[in-house]
């Protein structure tokens, strides 16, 4: 989707707050949100569905709410969509149904093992041979896609070079719809002056990790 989440290269934003405190959470509620997201969820969710739920936040809220506020909004909306909570329950803070059948909630002593086990492997073996090899010139597809898509607008239609091939990974576009499909994935390098009109003569480069169906021969 061509949402406001696709921020790369958008102009008009001001300076970065480089002096903020280094503490992981700036308000107590931010740590609670982080923890709630690590501890709750539904079995059929994928990381890409969760990201898509986040990018569906109202554009004004997406651009103005703090990161962990967006996480809370995402987790709440996803739990409602999956039938775990209702809007009314969240609004009133009062449960209107018996506790869910199912396993007990995560215990405190399960936290550190869970943090280590969250190393999810997204690589897959596929039969198809890779269409590109390192050094090939490619062009990113000019069109976006409905739903979740990890091809940023700023790279669309632009020419780059295959920098590395990383085997095949789960395709987020499908994964965000609850389907698993894998494609070859490549690091593609773009010269800055192929992306930005003001970058002429600047020797900077931008590397993106792009799936094969995001790319075509120039």
């Amino acid at each position, binding site marked *: 989707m061509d949402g406001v989440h696709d921020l790369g290269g958008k102009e008009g934003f001001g300076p970065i707050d480089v002096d903020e405190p280094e503490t992981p959470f700036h308000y107590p509620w931010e740590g609670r949100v982080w923890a709630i997201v690590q501890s709750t969820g539904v079995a059929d969710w994928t990381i890409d569905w969760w990201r898509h739920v986040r990018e569906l936040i109202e554009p004004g809220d997406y651009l103005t709410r703090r990161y962990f506020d967006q996480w809370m909004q995402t987790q*709440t909306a996803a739990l409602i969509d999956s039938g775990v909570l209702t809007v009314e329950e969240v609004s009133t803070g009062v449960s209107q149904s018996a506790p869910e059948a199912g396993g007990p909630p995560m215990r405190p002593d399960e936290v550190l093992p869970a943090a280590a086990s969250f190393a999810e492997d997204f690589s897959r073996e596929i039969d198809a041979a890779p269409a590109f090899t390192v050094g090939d010139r490619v062009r990113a597809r000019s069109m976006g896609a409905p739903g979740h898509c990890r091809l940023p607008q700023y790279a669309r239609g632009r020419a780059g070079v295959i920098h590395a091939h990383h085997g095949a990974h789960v395709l987020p576009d499908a994964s965000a719809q609850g389907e698993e499909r894998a494609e070859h994935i490549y690091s593609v390098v773009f010269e800055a002056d192929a992306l930005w009109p003001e970058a002429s003569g600047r020797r900077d480069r931008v590397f993106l990790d792009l799936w094969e169906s995001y790319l075509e021969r120039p």
Partner: protein
Amino acid sequence: MTSFESSRVAEIHRELHTHLPSEPALRVKALESLLVEKGLLDSRTVDAWVEAYTEEIGPKRGAHVVAKAWTDPAYKARLMADAPAAIDEFGYLGGATSHLKVVENTDTVHNLVVCTLCSCYPFSILGIAPNWYKTAAYRARAVRDPRGVLAEFGVEIGDEVEVRVWDSTAELRYLVLPQRPAGTEDRDETALAGLVTRNSMIGTQRDLSPKTGEAS
């Protein structure tokens, strides 16, 4: 059942926007107590997650990996070839690091990491991402004006240095291997790890020279 329907979720977001208080602390409190009431969440587990990412899982892990790479060429070779396996030697493999890549700064290359589409970050070795990393301003500007962003962090990059920006658009995560500062030959791994900052492993700091007057 999860719907996997964009329009349905967009409608839920609008309803939540209308019905919930604007103060996030109030909304989180209500959500936590609702989940506890439903038997889906234990508040002690929430405390344990906060503690884990405040005390245990943070940039000290990444600093340890960097200092090891500076002092042990064989470890550095393993880190550059297969970073997940190399960080797993210390038990640091975990959330968002199963496809980790290490990119090395040199005299002529500076690396900078961003996620323009969300805020992807190698949690298990760097902990919770800084707030600025997750802001719209950093996500928008890092790919387009990396030298301007770096200047705001006090990093001046000469014309002879190429800036490489890594936009984490997939499940690969990037860790910058900063340069070992000159004059640190007599420092051991632990002392060196003390010089490595979180920002230097994201790329918003370049020079890790000990501050003047600091004991070596």
